[in-house]
């Protein structure tokens, strides 16, 4: 049996009296594109804060391969690449300086970091912008740099929290295509949190998170079949009992 890349086991989290996550359980297998689909406020960002150890798990367990995020956070974070919902690049530094800083935070030597940075920038077609200040990049380019940065230390799991928010259609499609390619080329697993249904594709693993609970989890076809729906939009509406799908989930 293959060890899951990410394993979330009965994770609950509360902010005071407000329950943000309620016994959330799912697993992401290696080389899988898993979509965490949920409306705003479903608990996706809380889950990301727990996976990335910004918050400690109150109950339940999160493992990346065999590393418990709480007990062996260093080992877990070492094989994890993260793209947060908000921009986390230093706008006053150049693209290359941002990448080298990230490499240092993973203990990668300068020369090796430079080589890897050139490599990842070439992959995202931004090598010619390496010495430009991040402030001068477009939103889509910044996002690509953030993904490149998350890949610099060669993680086995890449988690992205609503990475296409605020981007135009072309930039969204480019980023989605690029991340999907990573599974084929690098064999990494991806957890992609979104509220945009059109970002879900046929071969994806789908996890529907609603009001802090996992309503459905499995290959897309099975999720759709299980709730007697005809497509993912219909399935999501049935699962969340949404009368209508607002622009948020289009």
């Amino acid at each position, binding site marked *: 049996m293959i060890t899951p890349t990410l394993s979330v086991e009965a994770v609950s989290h509360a902010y*005071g009296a407000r329950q943000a996550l309620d016994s959330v359980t799912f697993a992401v297998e*290696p080389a899988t594109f898993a979509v965490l689909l949920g409306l705003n406020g479903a608990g996706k960002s809380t889950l990301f*804060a727990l996976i990335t150890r910004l918050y400690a798990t109150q109950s339940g367990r999160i493992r990346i391969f065999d590393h418990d995020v709480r007990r062996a956070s260093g*080992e877990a974070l070492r094989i994890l690449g993260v793209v947060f919902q908000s921009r986390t690049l230093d706008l006053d*530094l150049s693209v290359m300086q941002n990448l*080298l*800083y990230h490499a240092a935070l993973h203990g990668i030597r300068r020369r090796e970091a430079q080589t890897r940075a050139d490599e990842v920038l070439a992959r995202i077609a931004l090598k010619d912008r390496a010495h430009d200040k991040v402030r001068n990049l477009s939103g889509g380019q910044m996002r690509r740099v953030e993904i490149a940065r998350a890949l610099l230390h060669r993680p*086995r799991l890449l988690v992205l929290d609503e990475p296409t928010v605020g981007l135009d259609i072309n930039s969204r499609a480019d980023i989605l295509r690029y991340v999907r390619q990573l599974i084929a080329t690098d*064999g990494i697993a991806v957890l992609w949190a979104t509220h945009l249904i059109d970002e879900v594709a046929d071969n994806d693993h789908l996890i529907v998170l609603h009001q802090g609970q996992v309503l459905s989890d499995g290959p897309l076809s099975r999720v759709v079949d299980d709730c007697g729906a005809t497509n993912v939009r219909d399935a999501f509406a049935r699962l969340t009992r949404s009368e209508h799908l607002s622009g948020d989930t289009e």
Partner: protein
Amino acid sequence: MNSTISDRQRAISVVSPHSGFSPGQFAICLKGIVWRESLRFLHQRERFISALVRPLVWLFIFAAGFRQVLGVSIIPPYQTYILYAEYITPGLIAMIQLFNGMQSSLSMVYDREMGNMRTLLVSPFPRWYLLSSKLIAGTAVSLLQVYAFLLIARFWEIGPPPVGYLLVLPALVVCGLMLGALGMLISSAIKQLENFAGVMNFVIFPLFFASSALYPLWQVREGSPLLYYICEFNPFTHAVELIRFALYAQVNWLSLAVVGGCTVLFILGAILAYDPSRGFLARRGEAAAAA
């Protein structure tokens, strides 16, 4: 499951790397954090200039104005009567470090609001090490400011014995760490950037004015015994005195003990405050804006 994945890729994807970091990798991480802080500082010329202008205004204007009003008798570590400007120089050095510590704190709050702080906190190195590295980086930046100030003050004919410039370095490091750690501790408790103005009123001003930075404590005692005791308990007083004695090649052991103890205390407090399971951040419940 993606059907295009080959067995080889799947095999690669389940490999987990070896654990642990070498001492060399710890050094790379520290160097990277110091490098980034220095770059940010050098990019912000206004910050460098204002860090220098502030103590120079005190030195050139305030000290000149009070020169005839305030006389300073012979008190350790001085062996002769000194000018008022010379007396307040150690206090102004500590002020540079105090403002730098608070500036670092402000930038941590800003980084947290902007999301940059997450980059640091999701590093696989231990969090205590990351925060300590950030403190060291902030202290290194404060040293640049202090020596630039001392250089300008030298032209104003205010200067300790030449050996004092070297001997004050360890004192500056300890004081820089203490004030930086205090700033870090405060930053963990500040929810929004807007709240930072309060830090000026409730932290910087009381620390600075209720200390021996501007007037000797024996004079304070004559005016108000209560204020004297407050000044005695103020760790900033001991930072000033540690720097003052070091500049004249002496050690004020009491101040060293107080500053050393407070440094450890504040660092531990900051590490605890940024601990995901116990810190203020976790208790506040700001998942999205957590760090």
